[in-house]
Structure formats: structure tokens, C-alpha cells
């Protein structure tokens, strides 16, 4: 039996053995304890989870975040989202073919009214912002409930295997996101007045000030004095022909599968979107031993940090800017993707199509705040706050910071005179800012040391771990700010700490004392790919910071130590004159992709926009035109767009884009009316409110 679990990883420690027995369509498999059904299935290469009741279309994982319902399976006869249902011993999982049957279980269950849970603060989402806010609030002896739909604390921090950007002092920059998550979770669990509700999605707020929480299998009403929404973000998506095929899913979903669940979900991957999520996903894929065939970005430049971009370029991943994914194709699942260059109106240029054989296509085109509860609570006049991505989309370091600030703001509501330093707001602004301009690389070695770092961090981004770890305080930013360009200002003792901590892998160390003849130099490179790819004394091709070929080198040693935080250091011998240029080693030769065919009008018309109700782009355009429609709600009535289990979370923005395309960008379009619940809730959850 194929087992696609990741057993070797440069950063992550493999999870426990698969020991939990379950069946899928009658066949026996084993899952890791606590693993979601979806990941257990994908570990065995099962990627089609159900067929849609309208047209029999195969569906599989899409958001891996409990937000959509593409991953529905029958679990012990009941439809469940595979991505948020943990496997249990003896579970009978079946693919859902069409509509489920209502089980003829005629036993009258026990029913009693649910007591209302009162609390000072209800925090929705236990990610970086929620946890940070909880630690601020808890100290004052208030009653706090922090609820999260996942089975573990930490939110998306757990997926972030890379070292964090930001400031060392304020948000543990330089540590890996997942380790920060663990640290924050430990701190939170020690707080006595914080009740942690895991596996508990918050599904609705009501005009009477109540909040509905699906606490495990029970629906509980909570009446908070103040509500804090730290529900994070969900991934935006794109509609293109074949976007609904199993194998096309979000970049964040991919990180969940690979980094949280350690399932090698793909063998051959392509990525749409050059923001940080897409760039990091490419890197994480390489770390998991997945071949990445390329990445497209619609804009002329990638929007993510330059250091993330360069990191994947050095690994030989082709990055196609001003390109888009034209179509995905496959028989029942993704088999190939065609990309094309686009002009400045984002129109594909005929003749530029290229086709890649892939099994997975990641769509990483940005994030949108999960803020529907926030908006409803505001509409209902509740005392509600928001922090993190639910408030403003930014890096997790910013989420931590905004959590702390918001926590303190809320403390003031309870009459606690806490200080919120102005500096905190300044740092938050800095952390939330888009990357600034990129400058020319300037290598400084003021003391003419034989050993010195080459700091290729030339873009203004909020990050300063290198300045904090230098034992001689020799690295400082050019303007003293976190977003400044770090440079060597004094002597270097060659400790390599800056090489080991730089989140962007942008620092190398040149040692010219290595060869007394002066012909060769030793370069220390940061290295986070699987152990075993490179061996000591191996001859290698060297590449520059952006992946350009430099020359030849030889690996002298691979070094690791505790403080390097699972990062390896490669010591590579190179010709002395190339020492400052070498920033990596070329591992994978570029392959020229095959030419592809353009997408036809028919392909475009048949693009699925509303996945839940299988509504095509052609249907929507025709409807808007024929009915002169400017009301999303009419579209719902006419075509059932947005009426499915995800409640329009996936397609609303896509549909609004089509409205603008057809009616003009300034057309007034009535927004679609949001109603509870934000996620579907089993009816049985309402019957017995349980203990109090």
C-alpha cells in the first residue's frame, strides 16, 4: 500500500506511527492518532472524497480549514467534513456519492434545554492574535473563553516551519512560527481563568447578544460581556477552467497537509501566486521532497518578500511573472496545468502557453479576513473587537502584536488602568506595512576582517533577528529601524549566528583565512533541505542569491548545533573571487516545459465559480446580462450561487468580480445577505445542552 506520509523532514519531527484502524469504502487503513480523516486518506493517495449530487463531479480537499465543504465524506453514515474530523478507531469512512441518505435511526434522544454560559470575554480563534490577547486579559482575573475550531491551539502558527520575521524583542522573531505557537500555547494553558474550547467552531452571533458555539458535538450559547474576533483569514481563490478538479487547492491548505499533518500530498506541484503564502509553500514543498515545477504571478513582480522569492529561485524553481494559470485539466483529477503570459490588461497572450504535467496546483492569491461574525456583532451593537488577520491581513508577528494591544484595550473596558505604549502601535504599523523598496546590494566589511557576513537583505521589511544575535553588536540597520537595511558596522568573529537565524536565508559568511594561498575561500550557507541530498566532500554547482549560475564548489562540512534551531550550515569551498557571490547550490536543472493550447471560450464558460452548487461562469454572466441584474441576492435566487454549504465564503468575491466585469467597475451591486450559521451545524447538537 502506498503511504505518502513524510518520515524525513529537515525541520519537522515526524508524528507518531499510524496505529488507528479505519476503513475507507470497505478497505482497511491506518491513521495517526488525532489525524483528520482527509489527511489519513491522502496519506494513501486517495484524493477524490465525494461526487457532487448535481452532476457527479469528483471533489476533494480544497481549504483544509473547515471553511468549505468540498471534502465531505460519510463518517459512520453521516456526512462530515473530512478536514476537521479526527479519525477514530474503527471509523467507517465512505465516499459520499450524491446526496446522503438520512439514517433511519428512530431512537428518541434525550433532550434538554441548554444553559447559557456567561463569560467576561469570548475570544473566537486561538491563533497568534487570540492567544496573545488571552494572555493580556487573563492576568486581571477575568473569565475568558477562547474557542477554536481546530483540535490544537496555535492556529496557523503550527504550519509555519520557517523562522519568523519581525522583531526579536517583541515577537520572538528568528524563532520558527510553530515553536512560537507551542510557546504561546504553553503560556496560555497555565492561565487558570482561561477556558480553552478546542474543536469548537463559533458559528453565529445573534441580535440578543448571544454567541453560538459548536462545542464538540454540543451547541452552546455563550453570553460574553465583550467579544474578540481573532478568527484569522481564509484563502482567496480564482476561477479558471478546471479549478474545481481534485488536486487544485489553496496554498495554506497545502501547508496544513504537509507541515501540520506531514502528508506528502503531491509529487509534482505548480503554484499560482507570488505572495508570501505561495513563495513559502514552494519552499515547504521542496522541504517535504515534492518537486515544484514552477510558480506564476500575474503582476510583473512577486508581491512577497524578495528573500522568500530568491530562496526558491536558488532551488531552481522557475518563477513566471506576468503569467497566469490558464486552465487545469485531468480526467477526474488534476493531470496538467497550462499557463500563459498576460498583457497589462491581464489578457492571455496567444502563443505563450506552456503546459506542465502536475498532480497538484496550489492557488495562493491572497487572504481575506474571516470577519463575518465581527460584522454581524457590530451590526447587532455588541461590544466587539478584532485583532490579527480578522482585522487586518498581515504577517503572524503583526497578529501577535495586535493581539497584545487589543487585549489591553479590552482590559480598559473592565476598568483596569493598563498602559499601551505608543511604541507598540508604531511597531504594529511597521509589521503590517507592505514590503518597502529594494536597494542595491552593498557589502560592508569596515574592519577588513578575513571573516565577514554577506548580508543580502536589501528590501525594506520589518525584520531584525540578525541585529539581535550578533555577539559583538556589529550588525545594525542603516537607519536604526526594524525595516532598515542591515549592515556590518564593526568586526566579525565568524560565529555564524546571523547565518543561522536570518529568516530570509539571506546571510552567508565568507572566510578568506581558509586558504593561506588566497585562491580559495570558505563560504557558510544556511541549509534547510532534507538531510542526505548533500554529502560532505561532494562537488557542487554554486548559484548566486537569485539562482544565477556562479561556478563550482565543494562541500567541506555540514554543521549543526542546538542553537541553529534545526538549520544546517553548509561549508562550501569556492574560488576566492566568487566567495561573495555564492549564496546557494544548484540542485535541479531547469526543464523546458511543453507548449500548451489556449483556453477556449467554452472552457471559460464552463469554469465552476460556485463550487457548492456547481454554477459556471457562463451561467452567471448570462444571468447578469439577460436580467440586467445588479443584486447578488437575485443571483442566489436565480442560480443558487452562494446557497450551498460554504454559504458563499468561497465564491462571493469571484462573483463580485464577474459583476464588475459585466456591469462596469463602478456598478452598484447589492451585497449578498449573510445569515447564520457560518458553518453547518448538526441538528443533534441543539438537542441536549449538556452539563452546567
Amino acid at each position, binding site marked *: 500500500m502506498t503511504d505518502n506520509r513524510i518520515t524525513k523532514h529537515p525541520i519537522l519531527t515526524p508524528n507518531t506511527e499510524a496505529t488507528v484502524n479505519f476503513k475507507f469504502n470497505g478497505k482497511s487503513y491506518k491513521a495517526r492518532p488525532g489525524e483528520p480523516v482527509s489527511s489519513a486518506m491522502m496519506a494513501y493517495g486517495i484524493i477524490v472524497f465525494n461526487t457532487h*449530487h448535481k452532476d457527479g463531479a469528483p471533489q476533494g480537499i480544497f481549504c483544509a480549514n473547515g471553511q468549505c465543504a468540498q471534502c465531505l465524506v460519510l463518517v459512520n453514515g*453521516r*456526512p462530515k467534513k473530512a478536514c476537521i474530523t479526527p479519525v477514530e478507531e474503527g471509523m467507517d469512512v465512505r465516499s459520499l456519492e*450524491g*446526496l*446522503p*441518505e*438520512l*439514517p*433511519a*435511526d*428512530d*431512537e*428518541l*434522544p434525550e*433532550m434538554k*434545554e*441548554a444553559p447559557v454560559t456567561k463569560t467576561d470575554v469570548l475570544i473566537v480563534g486561538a491563533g497568534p492574535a487570540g492567544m496573545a490577547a488571552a494572555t493580556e486579559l487573563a492576568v486581571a482575573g477575568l473569565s475568558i473563553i477562547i474557542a477554536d475550531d481546530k483540535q490544537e491551539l496555535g492556529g496557523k502558527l503550527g504550519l509555519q516551519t520557517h523562522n519568523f520575521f519581525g522583531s526579536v524583542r517583541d515577537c520572538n522573531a528568528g524563532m520558527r512560527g510553530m515553536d512560537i505557537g507551542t510557546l504561546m500555547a504553553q503560556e496560555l494553558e497555565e492561565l487558570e481563568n482561561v477556558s480553552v474550547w478546542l474543536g469548537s467552531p463559533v458559528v*453565529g452571533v*445573534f*441580535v*440578543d447578544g*448571544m454567541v*453560538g458555539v459548536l462545542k464538540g458535538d454540543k*451547541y452552546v*450559547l455563550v453570553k460574553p460581556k465583550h467579544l474578540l474576533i481573532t478568527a484569522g483569514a481564509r484563502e482567496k481563490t480564482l476561477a479558471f477552467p478546471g479549478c474545481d478538479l481534485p488536486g487544485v487547492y489553496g496554498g495554506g491548505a497545502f501547508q496544513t497537509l504537509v507541515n501540520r499533518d506531514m502528508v506528502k500530498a503531491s509529487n509534482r506541484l505548480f503554484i499560482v501566486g507570488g505572495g508570501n503564502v505561495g513563495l513559502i509553500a514552494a519552499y515547504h514543498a521542496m522541504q517535504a521532497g515534492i518537486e515544484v515545477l514552477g510558480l506564476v504571478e500575474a503582476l510583473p513582480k512577486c508581491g512577497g518578500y524578495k528573500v522568500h522569492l530568491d530562496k526558491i529561485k536558488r532551488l531552481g524553481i522557475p518563477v513566471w511573472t506576468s503569467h497566469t494559470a490558464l486552465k487545469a485539466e485531468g480526467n477526474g483529477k488534476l493531470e496538467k496545468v497550462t499557463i500563459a503570459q498576460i498583457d497589462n490588461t491581464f489578457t492571455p497572450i496567444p502563443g505563450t502557453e506552456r503546459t506542465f504535467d502536475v498532480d497538484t496546483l496550489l492557488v495562493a492569491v491572497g487572504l481575506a479576513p474571516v470577519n463575518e461574525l465581527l460584522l454581524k456583532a457590530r*451590526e*447587532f451593537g455588541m461590544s466587539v473587537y478584532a485583532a490579527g488577520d480578522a482585522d487586518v491581513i498581515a504577517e503572524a508577528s503583526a497578529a501577535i502584536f495586535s493581539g497584545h494591544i487589543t487585549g489591553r484595550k479590552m482590559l480598559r473596558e473592565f476598568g483596569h488602568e493598563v498602559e499601551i505604549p505608543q511604541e507598540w502601535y508604531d511597531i504594529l504599523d511597521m509589521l503590517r506595512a507592505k514590503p518597502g523598496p529594494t536597494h542595491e546590494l552593498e557589502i560592508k566589511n569596515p574592519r577588513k576582517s578575513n571573516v565577514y557576513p554577506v548580508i543580502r537583505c536589501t528590501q525594506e521589511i520589518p525584520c531584525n533577528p540578525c541585529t539581535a544575535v550578533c555577539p559583538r553588536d556589529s550588525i545594525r540597520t542603516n537607519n536604526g529601524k526594524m525595516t532598515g537595511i542591515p549592515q556590518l558596522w564593526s568586526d566579525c568573529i565568524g560565529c555564524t549566528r546571523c547565518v543561522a537565524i536570518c529568516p530570509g536565508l539571506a546571510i552567508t559568511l565568507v572566510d578568506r583565512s581558509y586558504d593561506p594561498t588566497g585562491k580559495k575561500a570558505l563560504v557558510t550557507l544556511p541549509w534547510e533541505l532534507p538531510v542526505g541530498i548533500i554529502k560532505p566532500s561532494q562537488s557542487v554547482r554554486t548559484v548566486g542569491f537569485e539562482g544565477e549560475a556562479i561556478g563550482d564548489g565543494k562541500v567541506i562540512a555540514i554543521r549543526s548545533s542546538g542553537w541553529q534551531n534545526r538549520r544546517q550550515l553548509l561549508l562550501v569551498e569556492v574560488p576566492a573571487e566568487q566567495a561573495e557571490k555564492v549564496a546557494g547550490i544548484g540542485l535541479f536543472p531547469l526543464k523546458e516545459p511543453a507548449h500548451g493550447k489556449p483556453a477556449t471560450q467554452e472552457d471559460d464558460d464552463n469554469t465552476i465559480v460556485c463550487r457548492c452548487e456547481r454554477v459556471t461562469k457562463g451561467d452567471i454572466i448570462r444571468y447578469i446580462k439577460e*436580467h440586467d*441584474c*445588479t*443584486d447578488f*441576492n*437575485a443571483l*442566489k*435566487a*436565480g442560480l443558487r450561487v452562494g446557497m450551498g*454549504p460554504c*454559504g458563499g465564503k468561497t465564491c462571493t468575491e469571484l462573483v463580485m468580480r464577474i459583476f464588475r466585469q459585466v456591469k462596469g467597475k463602478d456598478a452598484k451591486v*447589492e451585497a449578498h445577505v449573510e*445569515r*447564520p*450559521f457560518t458553518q*453547518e*451545524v*448538526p*441538528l*443533534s447538537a*441543539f*438537542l441536549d*445542552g449538556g452539563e452546567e
Partner: protein
Amino acid sequence: MANDYDVIVIGAGSVGVPTAYFLAKDGLKVLCIDGNASSGQGQNKAAIGGVRATHSDPAKITICKKSLELFSTWKENVGTDIGWKPGGYCFPIYTEGDEKTMKDMLPIQKRFGLNIDWIGPKEIAQAVPGINMAGLRGGTLSPEDGQVSPLMAMESFTQEARKLGVEFRFREKVTGLKMDGNAVKSVQTSAGAYSAAKIVNAAGADATAICEMAGFNIPVIPDSHEAGITSPVRAFLPPLVVDIRKGPEGMTKNFYFGQVESGQIIFCYTPLAPILGTDRRETSEFMPIIARRLVGLIPRLKGLTIRRLWRGLYPMTPDGVPVIGKAPGVDNMYLGIGMCGQGFMMGPGVGYNLAAHITKGKPTMDAEIYELLSPKRNLGRGKAERLA
């Protein structure tokens, strides 16, 4: 000066759109005005879509017979699927008093030719699989009633009305009526003024305000009901089910639910104390209460999954009977208002008869029965309908 239109219909909802459709079918030039951005955005989309002729009031029986005829043949006649699902209404009965109530209505229902009978518990259990048999005395089943999708029906009526030349003006709230003696001269909206020979008030929950603009008062007082829908399952429940008992929780009167043609279960209850007003924001109270009522009646419903909740308004008249016909004291205004929560099922029947009244001077239904709905009746005589 010539009028802009033959008829202006105020309100593009359950009553207004079918009325406009039938008026245009009779060859009139019709304008339909609504403050919302498209048709059916008031209470229409909040309806659960049950359509029955098996009422106890002769006028409602007659009107709904017409609606049923139109809905059930719509696909063959017009070609559009509106989610029509035959299967009838089933009232399972658990108490002696309720049994008497239901049986007492049968003679009048049969007199109007309705297909409805009292059946035993076993037959009820056949119609409603998994129903709680403890204390079940039997009940009524009326197989010719059914369910329709309010969204799809409104959509189709609107398109067909458009094809017949009805002009729709959306996002225009009626701000006033310009009177000329005893007649409405023109309708003023937030965007303009339009004149017509005749005006129809089909303004649903806003009906009283429109009446007042013409100088008379008909009390249509909205109260609100919450409803919800599940995700779809395979077809298992043919009839729409009404449980007329009061709830053990002391908050509810009857509740009702049915499986729509596309597989979802749609449900609603009547609050014991009416919740007056136009607030349509969701409360936390509804779902736990209706869940226990649903599962108490059919335990296997516990396997369903709830998708969405909403709230809609019942524009109530004092006697629980709609107000249809010529407006009192105004020469050229007609009313199709006060549907008391049954606007969707009555809409086509009301529109059909109102259009005939306007174009031919009299409704197609029996004039004597039509009179029961007259705006001129004594509206203060209390609740007449036993099963509103």
C-alpha cells in the same frame, strides 16, 4: 395628459409580481415598483414554500386552489422549473381536541372539492417515515397540496412578466401618492413620479403606509417568524408536515416543515406570543427550540445538518384574512395586502383574481366568496381562520 402606465403595482413580491404578470397578460402596460434591488427581496424569499388549498376559510380555499393550479402546471405551461413538489400536507394529530378541530373542517373542505381525508396512525406513519407513534391518533393528508421554491417561482414570474412587457423599477421606495380628488394621480418615488390609470397596493409588510398615503387606514401589522433550512438529503419525506400542538417549552404554537424538491428540509414555527415589529435579525432562541420540536416529532431528523436561519414578516390583519379588492374611498386603487404569512401560496391566486377585477371589473372567482376578502368588511371581528 395621458398616463405613463395603465397600472402601477407597488411591491415586487409574492403578490405584486403575479399581479403585474396577469395584468400584462391582459394586455395592460404595467409598472412594478420596489424599494429593494430585485424582486422577491422582501418576505417572499423568507417563505418556506408550502402551498395548500386545505384551509377552512372559503376565500382562502378558492384563492389557493387557483395558486395550486398555476404552480403545479407552471412547468408544462411556461417551461420553467419552479421546484414544484407534490406530496400534500399532513397534519399528524395527538390530542382529542385537535382531532375534533381537524374533523370539523373536513365537510367544508370537501364541499369545495378538496382532496383531504382523516387517516389512521399507520397511514400517517407511511406518509411521514419515522414519526413518533406514541399517542398518535391519526391525522389528515391532502395529497393535492404541495411545495414550490419561492425563489425559483419568483424568478420565473418576474422573467415571464418582463417578457410580457412589465417594466420593473427597483431601488425606488414609494415616498408619496399624488391625489386628484378621490383618485391617485401619480406615484412618487425616491427617483421620480409615475402616473397610471390604476394603482395596486401589494406592498406586503409596508401596505398600511401606502394606504395612508391615499388617505385611508387598513391595519396590516407585521409580526415575525424565524425559519431555517438544512443541507439536502435524499428524498424521504413527501408531505409538508404541520404539528398543531403547542410546544412543551411554552414558547411555540404550531410548527411545520417539509423536504423541498432539491432535498433540504425547510422549517418554521409560530411563536406563542407574536413578536410584533419589522425586526428581521436572527435570534438565538429559535434553533434550539425548533430542533427539539422536530426531533420530538420525528426522531430520525436528528441526523440532519442545519445550514441557514432567517426571519420573515407575517403582515397580519386583525381577522387573519387577507384584504383584497377595491380600496375604500379611492376610485382607482386596488389592494392585495395582509396575506398573514401566506402571501407566497396565495400570490398567484390573488394576482389572477385582482387582475381580472381590474381589467374586467370582476374577479374570476365567485363574487360572493371574493367579498369575504373585501377591504370594506368589518376588520375588527377577530380571528376567523382556525389554522392560519
